[in-house]
């Protein structure tokens, strides 16, 4: 079997805050193959963004630290690299990121050409103003910005929301990375623009074999882009599988509850199955299953011990003492 593009092993990332140590990521294992999109689905505070910031080594400098685990990309453990190595050879070069808000990820006082050209200059992939401009035009064309040569000297505010998100995507793919982490890349966009962004991601992937981690809380968006989906809850992955398995026959009660808790088009005015309660504190998480307090299948065992991960079918893994289909 060939090596996956990215393999995260037993990752633990803690945030050392005044009020205590937040175990934001608490033993995460995942892998992404080349040309594949893995969806990382979860609520805020589930650790999905902290997982991605760990991979990019962009944790809050004062408080965040990877305390355990490995992040293998192309045989190199990113968790063990120095900041210099990370900045020179990896971040923005082989592993890059698109974040949620295109307005805050673009600098308002620099032209779009300056900003899209920056990764080429920084990583030495284009030399001289002319070459950088040409490279910027080329990558803006790849993300389907109309007449990019005329727009290089415009500022971010002169672009619409959808076009700005394309500019951010252009910066992320400028150096032809192997892995792209997209953190809620469509959640501030209107649906008609969302569709266009979804199509763009698929296209970039098909052309380049890019591996993508898509972080989202939107189960609809995840279904339309991802090949595999991992569901996170309170710092851990509770279920992972190919997209059809996760949506058609989820085995973890949390995944099932999540799918039942939102209205879907075409299902009218039935009462929604609310998930009672709230996620646990990650400063002092329960010893047993972290979803137990909100789970309809809870037993004494669930409170006593964290469930081991079991593989129900090839690639379909779930961490639950009583996995299986929902009771009718």
């Amino acid at each position, binding site marked *: 079997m060939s090596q996956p593009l990215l393999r995260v092993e037993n990752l633990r990332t803690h945030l050392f805050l005044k009020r205590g140590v937040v175990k934001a990521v608490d033993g995460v294992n995942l892998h992404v193959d080349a040309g594949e999109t893995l969806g990382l689905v979860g609520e805020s505070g589930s650790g999905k963004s902290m997982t991605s910031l760990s991979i990019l080594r962009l944790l809050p400098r004062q408080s965040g630290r990877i305390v355990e685990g490995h992040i293998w990309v192309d045989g190199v453990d990113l968790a063990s690299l120095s900041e210099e190595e990370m900045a020179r050879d990896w971040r923005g070069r082989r592993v890059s990121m698109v974040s949620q808000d295109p307005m805050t990820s673009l600098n308002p006082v620099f032209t779009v050409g300056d900003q899209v050209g920056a990764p080429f200059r920084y990583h030495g992939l284009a030399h001289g103003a002319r070459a950088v401009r040409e490279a910027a035009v080329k990558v803006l064309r790849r993300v389907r910005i109309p007449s990019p040569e005329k727009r290089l000297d415009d500022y971010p505010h002169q672009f619409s929301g959808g076009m700005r998100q394309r500019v951010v995507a252009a910066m992320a793919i400028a150096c032809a990375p192997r892995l792209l982490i997209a953190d809620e890349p469509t959640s501030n966009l*209107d*649906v008609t623009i969302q569709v266009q962004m979804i199509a763009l991601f698929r296209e970039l992937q098909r052309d380049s074999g890019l591996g993508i981690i898509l972080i989202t809380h939107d189960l*609809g968006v995840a*279904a*339309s882009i991802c090949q595999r989906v991992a569901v996170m809850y309170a710092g851990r992955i509770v279920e992972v599988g190919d997209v*059809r398995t996760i949506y058609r026959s989820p085995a973890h009660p949390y995944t099932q509850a*999540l799918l039942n808790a939102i209205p879907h088009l075409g299902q*009218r005015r039935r009462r*929604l*199955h609310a998930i009672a309660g709230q996620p646990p504190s990650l400063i002092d998480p329960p010893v047993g299953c972290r979803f137990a307090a909100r789970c309809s299948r809870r037993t004494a065992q669930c409170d006593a011990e964290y469930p081991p991960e079991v593989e129900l079918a090839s690639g379909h893994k779930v961490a639950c003492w009583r996995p299986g289909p929902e009771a009718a």
Partner: protein
Amino acid sequence: MLLEVRDLKKHFPVGSGLLRASGAVRAVDGVSFSVDVGETFALVGESGCGKTTIARMVLMLERPTAGAILFDGKDLAGMSGAGLKAYRRQVQAVFQDPYASLNPRLRVRTIIAEPILAHERSGRAALRRRVEEVLDVVGLPAAAADLFPHEFSGGQRQRIAIARALAVNPRCIVLDEPISALDVSIRAQVLNLLADIQERFRLTYLIIAHDLALVEHFSTRVGVMYLGNMVEAGPTDAVFDRPRHPYTQALLASVPRPDPDHQPPLDAIRGEIASAMAPPSGCKFHPRCPRAIDRCAVEVPAWRSLGRDHAGACHLAEGA
């Protein structure tokens, strides 16, 4: 009709620069609809379509440029003194972000008591009872009254905002994206609560939302807006089952569904929303419309019936 909006307009003046002629953003450009007692009317559309501006005018946070808003048959513009005060009591609001809509320095008790004290003389004991009563209605313990907003989660904060709206026995609540800032697992709790109190207190809702699945689930009637105009309106079932305006059709087709075998079609809609300062001629949607004909660029489509209580503004939509 409890709430009626007639040919409502709101134009914001912009850019009165030294040499440049000033223009106006036509945020709302002639919108009419009405909401009956106990109904949930939803306004949907993409950002910039004017739905929030309408909500703000209904809440009297913004003054209309033209047109009228009638509550119980009475024109808001003609109200003053006691009438106006009564209106402000009867129409309450729940906003999107419960982190911004609750004053962080006030205890929950004060937050909920504020609207009560603004509208009536109330003794300490009665006030205390009322606060605890509405907290109970939204599913929070009486002890919550003595805490500050930061001691609550997002979902609980939204419950506090709902309790505050309920405190003065309103007849209508404007819900501006009431769940979009909440976590997925919490949304259903808040939605179910809103449905319960609507039934219990016979409330009328005007809900502003961009999430079409939510609107289909939650509303009884819906109005679809595009660039300041209503393009289609009708009973939620009719609009979602048989959308007649190409914009409504495109919107519904574009919604990503939690179904791996469903791919939103790419050709449902082109480009991006035009500027409300210089909207396209004729039908404002025509540059993005997959079915536009020559007439669409010249002639503004008239508002006409498309079936029982279902209407829209499109040259191509046939009456039922």
